[in-house]
């Protein structure tokens, strides 16, 4: 984890020096921390953080799907960029017995336009998306959201598919996929299928992907209006406490169509459909944005944690919704 999610029980404690010492000595042993035993020889100590696993980097998607099925008992995981999975393995919060690395599979990376859809390979690195002229034109919301994700060295490795399949509730890209009505293509033993983003995120770190399935492609409809991704984080690059993805299409001074997604107020990112209904057909002004923001958080009861109380999350969500809507409206005005 490149930042503390807070939603993973124990992660913050795991980051302490004591647990790190345990990682270096191999498998954690119950009671070692309490007794402080130090009889292991330190001179030949081998630095090893993740637990052992078997590994394959197949050349085709079919092989990858086959390996996942073949090694199902080892609780295999798919390795994309590894920027979320490897930190979890370093902390031994994830202990897959088998990793299927997608890096050698041709065709899983790339950006192309198919009519009114931007099609992005799951292994496309975030930094490539950030710099892509095609993304800037067809999905500027995605490019803006990526600017909030950690920092360049993480974005140089992290992939769009990895982030979506990891489904961290604080992450930016799930909110983008939700707001943009993305379709996610997956390959599995029974063939390939498409899953709507609105049906993809089923819980914290949980998706509609079956255990043997691999996310292969993200399909984003091109949005004709204005966009905004705004978030509140303790420092830039940390996980957001609250994040807002906003897409607004105008018809004169009124909102023709709105799509809003929100992180930080529920166990998964959510579409703010009540707020979208308030916006649709209404005057594109601050009063409407305020009513929409109120509607978006009505009925939400986020869990408070060490990052923010429940009330603070709701207040932040309202404030950042108003801000996100205003920015998207302003951009929609300037672009049309």
């Amino acid at each position, binding site marked *: 984890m*490149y930042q503390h999610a807070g939603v993973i029980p124990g992660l913050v404690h795991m980051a302490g020096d004591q647990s790190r010492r345990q990682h270096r000595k191999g498998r954690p042993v119950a009671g070692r921390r309490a007794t402080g035993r130090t009889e292991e020889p330190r001179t030949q100590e*081998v630095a090893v953080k993740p637990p052992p*696993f078997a590994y394959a980097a197949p050349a085709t998607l079919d092989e990858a799907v086959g390996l996942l099925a073949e090694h199902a008992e080892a609780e295999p995981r798919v*390795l994309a960029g590894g920027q979320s999975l490897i*930190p979890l393995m*370093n902390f031994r919060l994830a202990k897959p017995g*088998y990793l299927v690395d997608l890096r050698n599979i041709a065709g899983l990376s790339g950006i192309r336009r198919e009519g009114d859809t931007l099609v992005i390979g799951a292994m496309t690195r975030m930094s490539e998306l950030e710099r892509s002229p095609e993304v800037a034109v067809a999905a500027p919301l995605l490019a803006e959201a990526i600017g909030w994700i950690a920092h*360049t060295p*993480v974005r140089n490795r992290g992939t769009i598919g990895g982030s979506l399949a990891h489904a961290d509730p604080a992450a930016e890209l799930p909110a983008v996929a939700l707001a943009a009505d993305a379709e996610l293509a997956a390959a599995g033993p029974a063939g390939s299928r498409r899953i709507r983003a609105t049906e993809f995120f089923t819980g914290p770190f949980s998706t509609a992907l079956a255990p043997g399935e691999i996310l292969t492609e993200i399909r984003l409809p091109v949005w004709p209006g204005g966009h905004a991704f705004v978030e509140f984080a303790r420092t830039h*690059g940390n996980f957001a406490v609250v994040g807002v993805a906003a897409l607004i299409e105008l018809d004169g001074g009124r909102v023709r169509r709105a799509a809003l997604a929100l992180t930080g107020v529920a166990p998964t990112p959510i579409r703010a459909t009540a707020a979208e209904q308030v916006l649709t057909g209404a005057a594109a002004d601050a009063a409407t944005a305020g009513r929409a923001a109120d509607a978006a958080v009505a009925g939400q009861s986020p869990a408070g944690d060490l990052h923010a109380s429940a009330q603070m999350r709701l207040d932040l969500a309202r404030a950042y919704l108003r801000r996100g809507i205003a920015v998207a409206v302003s951009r929609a005005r300037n672009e049309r």
Partner: protein
Amino acid sequence: MAPTTCTISLTVNGRPHVAEVEPRRLLVDFLREDLGLPGTHIGCEHGVCGTCTVLLNGASIRSCITLAVQADGADISTVEGLARGGELHPLQDEFSAKQALQCGYCTPGMLMRACEILAENPDPTPEQVRSAIASNLCRCTGYQFITEAVISAAARMRATDVTEEVAS
């Protein structure tokens, strides 16, 4: 089960290596322990602090959250590859001259990140440098001097045209 070790071949600071590694071997441990290149430091071990930053095919990465097997076939640059023929790289020289380090723990990561920053933009503003090095933590709070060192090194490198060497 797949074999317990994998054979990887990669180039580190221009030198080719072929090695047998466990799949769980982190790139930073491979560099430090297997290749004997301890210049790359280990800090947070979960991708936050940036002291383990190295370049993979010219792009900065966190070597503590990258497996050595993921670097198979790659071209890796570490801080050990910066000096040439006993002469410090302009970035190292300016870090020294401007006292852009106190304890030095963040320095290898800062230097490699600075290489990438200047390869992408040989003439950055102080604001751009500050924003870009936000990826790397310095707990002696030396950011001001680090920014000044990167700016001075950039000027020297533009004058002597060593940009290409940094990117490789």
